[in-house]
């Protein structure tokens, strides 16, 4: 099982495209693997004959476990050097690297990201080799830990502390409370323990880690959304004239663009806590939540500060499409500096997201609703109001600069023409 993302510890073999005995060439797509982040294609790096498939489709295996053997026709397949796959039970130990004839399947390389600055969290966090290995075993992100070693280096004791902290802070593990089955025998769903996939485990781990290790504080502002709605309507009307190539701007596209601009005005929010220092980021790499049937993912728009509203709208649409078909590469989901989440389409009027570590803040956007407001002339009028919440990491951002950011954002949203300059 190849390691397809920096945080991947287990993978689920979604399907095989090959059969034993089949000849494969370099670059052939052997099958698909679901990681904690995405479903990815396995491409063949060793031409030859499929001698043996060790892991049937649907099995979940730790990184490094043999999944198939490729060799010369007629050659005997080696015995797998790792335990047989277990259905939906992530093994904790990472077995030894397979023998040479076993799996050499590596994923299709994520498209090279050109001008994008390297943003890998782990590579920019100082951590001892031992701490990195411990973190991998404990499925923790070393970048999210504060190091107590020399120069803020994350060392073994930091990982040990982080690994034991949540267990103390929150009752984890299955609750052994007996819940009576439905009295009429016809409940709303079966009583069952549903095994969770890689994505759900990542959500559980990362958000728990954020919520228990990052000191969140919350700010809220109400925005007059009427000018934004008016501008969107008029732009979309014009854009629709383009016919087949027409793009349609969503409210979220405006919020993404406005967020990038607001970060330019208050760059203190575009930063990360780095143990003993605050790391400021020159580029705005904007992450946004995409809800899926079984969870959510957060694709990243790189260099959003340098993109137009249209660029952002087109890129967001493409990323949402990939997210829904689970084709996002790990690269497209990592390295963000700020995150926007939006539940407005569900009618939620206001909320506060959990910070997407190592971001310093997350923006939570509510629905635009009609309600009575008092205008500048003290008249009671019908307003189109949108409530925006900001959750900030108080190690990086204080109330005042958090508020300045919201102020800048409010101004941009209420006078959306400012986004055009």
């Amino acid at each position, binding site marked *: 099982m190849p390691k397809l993302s920096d945080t991947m510890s287990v993978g689920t073999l979604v399907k095989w495209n090959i059969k034993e005995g089949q000849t494969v060439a370099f670059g052939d797509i052997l099958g698909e693997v679901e990681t904690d982040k995405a479903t990815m294609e396995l491409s063949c790096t060793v031409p030859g004959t499929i001698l043996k498939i060790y892991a049937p489709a649907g099995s979940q295996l730790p990184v490094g476990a043999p999944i198939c053997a490729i060799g010369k026709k007629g050659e005997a397949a080696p015995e797998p050097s790792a335990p047989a796959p277990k259905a939906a039970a992530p093994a904790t130990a990472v077995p030894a690297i397979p023998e040479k004839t076993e799996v050499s399947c590596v994923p299709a390389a994520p498209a090279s990201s050109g001008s994008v600055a390297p943003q890998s969290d782990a590579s920019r966090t100082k951590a*001892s*080799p*031992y*701490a*990195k*290995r411990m973190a991998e075993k404990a499925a923790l992100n070393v970048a999210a830990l504060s190091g107590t*070693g*020399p120069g803020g280096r994350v*060392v*073994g004791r930091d990982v040990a502390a982080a690994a034991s902290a949540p267990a103390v802070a929150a009752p984890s593990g299955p609750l052994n409370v007996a819940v009576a089955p439905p009295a009429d025998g016809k409940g709303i769903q079966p009583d069952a323990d549903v095994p969770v996939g890689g994505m759900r485990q990542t959500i559980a781990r990362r958000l728990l880690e954020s919520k228990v290790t990052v000191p969140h504080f919350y700010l809220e502002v109400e925005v007059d959304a009427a000018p934004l709605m008016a501008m969107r309507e008029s732009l979309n009307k014009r854009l629709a004239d383009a016919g087949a190539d027409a793009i349609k701007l969503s409210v979220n596209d405006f919020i993404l663009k406005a967020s990038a601009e607001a970060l330019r005005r208050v760059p203190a929010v575009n930063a990360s806590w780095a143990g003993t220092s605050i790391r400021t980021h020159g580029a705005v790499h904007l992450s946004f939540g995409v809800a899926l049937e079984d969870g959510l993912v957060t694709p990243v728009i790189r260099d959003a500060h340098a993109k137009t509203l249209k660029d952002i709208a087109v890129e967001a649409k493409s990323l949402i499409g990939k997210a829904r078909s689970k084709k996002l590469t790990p690269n497209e989901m990592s390295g963000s500096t700020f995150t926007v989440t939006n539940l407005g389409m569900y009618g939620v009027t206001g909320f506060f997201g959990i910070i997407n570590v190592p971001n310093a803040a997350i923006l939570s956007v509510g629905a635009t609703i009609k309600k009575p407001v008092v205008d500048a002339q003290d008249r009671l009028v019908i307003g189109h109001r949108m409530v925006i919440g900001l959750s900030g990491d108080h190690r990086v951002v204080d109330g005042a600069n958090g508020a300045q950011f919201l102020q800048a954002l409010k101004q941009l949203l209420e006078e959306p023409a400012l986004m055009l300059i």
Partner: protein
Amino acid sequence: MAVISYREALRAAMREELKRDDKVVIMGEEVAQFNGAYKVTEGLLKEFGPKRVVDTPISEAGFIGLGIGASMLGIRPVMELMFWSFSYVAFDQIVNNAGNIRYMSGGLINCPIVIRGPANGGTNVGATHSHTPEAILASHPGIKVVCPATPYDAKGLLKAAIRDNDPVYVMENTILYNDKGEVPDEDYIVPLGVADVKREGSDLTIVAHGRAVITSLKAAEVLEKEHGVSVEVVDLRSIRPLDEETILASVRKTHRALLVEENKPFCGVDAQVAYLIQSKAFDELDAPIHRVSSIDAPQIYCKRLEDQQLPDVNRVVREALKVLA
């Protein structure tokens, strides 16, 4: 078990081997009539006679060559160098002839010579008498090198060296000659190539050899008492063959390593050990490997400065705390 000195342990090893095997002979400057420059061979001439215990002229290249020739013909000579510093006069014999004859004869000729003597600084004898050539010699395939730190290891390693069929060079330490320790009365050897965990611990591994082991054990006491740190001390005993597994097992346990030796730092034994650890246990390391060695200068003659030049307990403790940071 008898409590005897390091010097007596070496003598007992030679005495027992002289008795066990009549091919064993002792040769060197002043080893017979004068009873040894450091009295290690005291009484052996009287007990075994001038055919088994032979005084040589002051000519290291000559008598080491004599020993090598004799060893090729089946004699098992135990040669004493008054100081290992003088080995440099006989370097061609020690490295080229002794080290290569088995290989170059296609395994037909063995060279079971033992060369022993003190190799240490710290005794105010100046730059030309204070060399520690274990790293230089161990860098030659075909040569075995051991550095005992205790009376037990001194006796066991010397006996193993005498019985080994390859050249084995035993580096002793004049400062340790009077150190006492328990040594079994019965026959035993300490196998070549096997390190010894002299003290168990869980927070830091100190790897040392020779007298640096004694310094490290004292430092481990201080670290435990004053800093609450549990230190494991691994004594290499053999420089080559090197017991890699004992070193790696200890690092896998403590995840931090400090290497201590009385060599000069440049190309020292611990340069090799540091490479070994990072190459085979990189993912076990929770901190960079540090080294404590002699200060990189010709051996200083001024006694008070020379005492500072060698690793001492304070320096080891200080450096250990850096690794533990």
